[in-house]
């Protein structure tokens, strides 16, 4: 279930190429933690200002000036609201930006990412939060936080992999088959733009995976847990 999701993420074929005449741009480092291959193509010296060509599955999706990209990436990053109205290039660009991939993170780093998702769920105050920590011992220090989330928000909270710790307002599920996974997913409640999720799997002592703000991907992560 999550394995196929991982495979899909791995097989995404997005390519960014920076066409440039002169100095190096920062595009490569800007997308270092994102699931995209960045390369560069040299143009003659009197050519245009640098621009970025976005390709998805080997097809041209868009080209935009690097200056414009920098402007877009300057916080606060304003995402286009309705995906359907957005040109294909921006669609791919924001999909790439929505997803942060990692090859090697430890438990403390994953807890920090988890905390961000929990905070966001707490701020929205409603919607569904589904959580699976990699082990019981990781969840235990979080008990107070989840007790508070249950008491002070309208969130529908589901915790998986633990069935013997009744915390009122939290639904615990003993679900098998997710053993090496660490999963947190929040559907955004009434505002899908608030959806976010973390999906990680253990590789030795470290974890690999990604987190995402893409509502569709969040939904794909939530579904196997909800079944």
């Amino acid at each position, binding site marked *: 279930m999550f394995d196929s999701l991982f495979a899909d993420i791995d097989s995404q074929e997005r390519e960014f190429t920076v*066409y440039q005449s002169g100095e190096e741009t920062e595009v490569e480092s800007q997308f270092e933690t994102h699931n995209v291959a960045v390369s560069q193509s040299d*143009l*003659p010296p*009197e*050519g*245009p*200002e*640098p*621009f*970025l*060509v976005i390709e998805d599955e080997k*097809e*041209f*999706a*868009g*080209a*935009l*000036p690097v*200056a*414009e990209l920098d402007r877009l990436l300057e916080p606060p990053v304003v995402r286009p609201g309705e995906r359907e109205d957005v*040109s*294909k*290039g*921006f669609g791919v660009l924001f999909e790439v930006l929505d997803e942060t991939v990692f090859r090697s993170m430890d438990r403390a780093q994953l807890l920090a990412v988890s905390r961000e998702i929990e905070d966001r769920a707490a701020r929205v105050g409603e919607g569904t939060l589904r959580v699976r920590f990699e082990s019981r011992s990781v969840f235990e220090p979080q008990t107070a936080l989840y007790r508070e989330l249950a008491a002070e928000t309208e969130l529908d909270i589901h915790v998986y992999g633990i069935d013997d710790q009744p915390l009122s307002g939290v639904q615990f599920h003993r679900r098998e088959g997710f053993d090496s996974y660490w999963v947190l997913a929040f559907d955004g409640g009434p505002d899908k733009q608030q959806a976010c999720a973390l999906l990680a799997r253990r590789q030795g002592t470290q974890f690999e995976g990604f987190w995402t703000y893409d509502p569709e991907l969040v939904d794909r992560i939530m579904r196997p847990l909800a079944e």
Partner: protein
Amino acid sequence: MTGNEFGAVVETGTESAISLDEDRLYRALASTRRRRLLYVLLVEEACSAERLATILAGWDSTETGRIATPEDREEILIDLKHRHLPGLDDAGLITYDHGSDTVEIGTLDGSVAQLISRSIEAET
């Protein structure tokens, strides 16, 4: 044979370098798109029409500040394949092999190359 917008059609089999004093050269350079693609070819010597279309679409975007869409690029590609490339090929400035999608710069006189470069410098 009458000339097209690029001027007179070059004699087939002509191997001599094109020189400055030819009217068709100025006609060829009358279009921004043609100046830019010639300039890219001067440096790259050969590339595909697909690559040229991508570069020209991106070049446009640096001026408008807007993203170039796949439709924008497709329009440029069609314009290249049906108008600019065959025209420049006829004028002897490039050779364009439709089948293999290869565009190559012709044998240009040094002053012609300079004129192309200068026309781009003047633009920016």
